């Protein structure tokens, strides 16, 4: 028989350094990681043996995660749809009826000379009518009119420095003073409102997400609690044999980890399915609006956040349950 292995740190004479180094034999460190890996795999094995119960718990977590994740993706898409316009803060100057083309051109030239104006585009009444006919689908209705009802438009594109709301207001005030201008309108208004709504939506997703995270914590905590109670005898025996709390905690933490991960993967699939179902009607709709927009899926970042928060919630939920219930189980 080999001599008993000494588990306590042997007070080896070591004068070279003042701090006593934690000397662990390499074999034990290896064994430690091997053990972690083993617990990781075996806790998945335990879940695998009760597929239905595992699926139920994972599904609850998955649905709870899929809700905010899906909304997030939806908002991302709305944002993507509107970012195209966000940078192009422009002003439309509707010219009074009856102003001659020559005067309008002169006005455009004058505007181009202004500070803060990048470009001025002239849309004649005919061009406006053509565009309207093409985009609106009311071509036949227009044909029945004797006269072109549309005004000429000067589209003013401010320089990027002048795109600030305050300066835009200033510019708006100035162009409204111009005689030929019937109406000056900031095209940004509704984009800004939309982005305000998106901000609100994001906040809503965050609130919903945190509320559902709490629900996930409770679900995982309760599941782990039941697992702990059902393995009470085993815990008592391992404690009697000299298991540390960390050792006993480990399989439960990994179980929580798996629940979180499985739930997150399910959520990912649920969001994917929902997007898949939506993408066809969305692209049909966007085609009708003459847009190239197509529904974006879960990007890498969102996927990472989804999986990460699933795992985090799984670990935290089981940690809380284990901390509360393991203490109560002592050999007697």
């Amino acid at each position, binding site marked *: *028989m080999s001599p*008993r*292995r000494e588990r*306590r740190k042997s007070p080896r004479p070591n004068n070279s350094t003042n701090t006593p180094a934690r000397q662990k034999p390499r*074999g*034990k460190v290896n*064994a430690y990681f091997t053990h972690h890996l083993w617990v990781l795999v075996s806790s998945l094995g335990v879940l695998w043996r009760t597929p239905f119960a595992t699926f139920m718990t994972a599904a609850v977590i998955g649905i709870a995660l899929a809700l905010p994740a899906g909304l997030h993706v939806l908002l991302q898409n709305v944002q993507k749809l509107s970012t195209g316009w966000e940078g192009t803060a422009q002003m439309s100057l509707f010219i009074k009826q009856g102003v001659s083309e020559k005067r309008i051109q002169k006005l455009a030239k004058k505007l181009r000379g202004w500070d803060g104006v990048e470009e001025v585009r002239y849309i004649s009444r005919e061009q406006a009518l053509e565009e309207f006919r093409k985009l609106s689908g009311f071509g036949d209705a227009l044909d029945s009119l004797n006269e072109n009802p549309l005004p000429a438009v000067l589209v003013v594109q401010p320089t990027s420095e002048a795109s600030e709301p305050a300066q835009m207001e200033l510019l708006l005030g100035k162009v409204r003073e111009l005689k030929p201008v019937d109406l000056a309108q900031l095209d940004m208004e509704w984009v800004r409102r939309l982005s305000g709504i998106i901000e609100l939506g994001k906040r809503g997703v965050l609130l919903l997400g945190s509320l559902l995270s709490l629900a996930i914590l409770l679900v995982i905590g309760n599941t782990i609690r039941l697992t702990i109670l059902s393995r009470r005898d085993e815990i008592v025996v391992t404690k009697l*044999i*000299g298991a540390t709390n960390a050792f006993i905690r480990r399989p439960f933490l990994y179980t929580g980890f798996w629940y979180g991960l499985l739930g997150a993967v399910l959520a990912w699939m649920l969001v994917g399915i929902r997007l898949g179902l939506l993408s066809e009607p969305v692209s049909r709709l966007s085609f009708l609006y003459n847009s190239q927009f197509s529904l974006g899926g879960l990007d890498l970042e969102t996927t990472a956040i989804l999986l990460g928060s699933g795992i985090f919630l799984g670990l935290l939920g089981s940690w809380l349950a284990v901390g509360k219930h393991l203490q109560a189980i002592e050999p007697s």
Partner: protein
Amino acid sequence: MIKFDNVNKRYPGGHEALSGVSFHIEPGEMVFLTGHSGAGKSSLLKLIACIERASRGNVIIDGQNLNRLKSRHIPALRRKIGVVFQNHNLLFDRTVYDNVALPLIIAGYHQSEVGRRVRAALDKVGLLGRERAMPITLSGGEQQRVGIARAVVNRPPLLLADEPTGNLDPELSKEIMQLFEQFNQVGVTVLVATHDHDLISRLDHRLLTLKQGRLDRDGSTADLIGETVAAAGGGI
């Protein structure tokens, strides 16, 4: 190895399980602990494994005073003590091998070392070849031997047994006791709590007798037999 110094154990409710118990067991000794049920045998063993703490007095195991032992150091203490339970306390959802390997895995031994030691321990109790069996398929005696293999696989310096032969027939009981004697011969301190007088009388070891929580006598089993004979003779 085990030192009790005027130890009292009082349970909530006022029941005093042990009162004024003092004794000292040297390393390498084999000692029987006997007494009627309720005499305090189990309480005494629980104090040694730090499952419970003494109400008064000192319990010193391997130089450590358990009164001052912090909870986080209890696992280290228990790894020095192999415990054999009357009801075996095996984990029934794991194989014999996994049951015996548990103390080694807890202590963080390397996989190859675990395999070697588990087989050595199972060989010792005569169950090599049943490694893959589930405990439920084993007989009571075999289950108890798995429990013993688990208690000694870590080669603890101290082995406690609480009624290890409680449910076994005399022949099996004898085999189990022989196992304990073998461990004792290689230097393990052994403390066996039992009320099986027949068994004790056949073996010559130190004997602690508890009576209503007090240490009634401390002597060899041979003395006890002499006393019993004398008492019987006196009666005639």
